[in-house]
């Protein structure tokens, strides 16, 4: 939204709520393989935190990512996903075969590390896409 409609109540609620949303998003991302959740849900939670700031505090929000930055971030997230996949091919594995990483650890640990890298890419991409869609829907246009 371009102009804010927050009152002091909404503003204070926002300040207390958003840190918990961000911490929960990080928890969902890090524990994706043990509990429900994963990259998509964590990215949507981060995106909701930023969209909430845009709704309540307007353009001059504390936690703001502009639409153009969001599109660049979405590209970076997709690149992380593809880069990790191609990196395993460079180490004589298949696409996204995490066991091919030449790291001195157990096979399961290598899998967990590779899946975490993929999920970070998915998280950044989903967060940035949600912010970009919201920005496109609320952008003020001149006519």
């Amino acid at each position, binding site marked *: *939204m371009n102009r804010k409609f927050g009152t002091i109540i909404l503003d204070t609620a926002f300040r207390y709520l958003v840190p918990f949303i961000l911490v929960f998003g990080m928890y969902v991302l890090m524990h994706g393989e043990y509990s*429900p*959740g*994963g990259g*998509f*849900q964590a990215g*949507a*939670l981060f*995106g*909701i935190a930023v*969209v909430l700031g845009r*709704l309540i505090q307007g353009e001059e929000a504390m936690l703001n990512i502009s639409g153009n930055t969001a599109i660049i971030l979405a590209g970076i997230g997709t690149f992380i996903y593809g880069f990790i996949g191609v990196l395993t091919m460079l180490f004589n594995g298949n696409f996204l075969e995490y066991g091919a990483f030449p790291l001195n650890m157990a096979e399961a640990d290598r899998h967990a590390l590779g899946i975490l890298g993929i999920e970070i890419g998915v998280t950044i991409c989903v967060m940035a896409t*949600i912010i970009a*869609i*919201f920005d496109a*829907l*609320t952008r003020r246009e001149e006519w």
Partner: protein
Amino acid sequence: MKELSLIAVLLVLMVVTGTLALFLKDLLASIILFSAFSFFAVLIYLALGAPDVAFTEAVVGVVSTTFFIAALRRLKRGCSR
């Protein structure tokens, strides 16, 4: 048996909210009813033992409601006629 009746009640609520969301004239009320529809879907997924799907559905329900209301602000009138 108890779970089956719970799922049956939730399914009836889903049908009611979904049909109402289709036929209401006020678009804001339609969006809120669609959000309720999504929430009943979350409860059904939980009752069927799929917390992962339920989590995704809850998050997507919130995001899509925000998008619909942001799009509604761009319309001249809030009614479909």
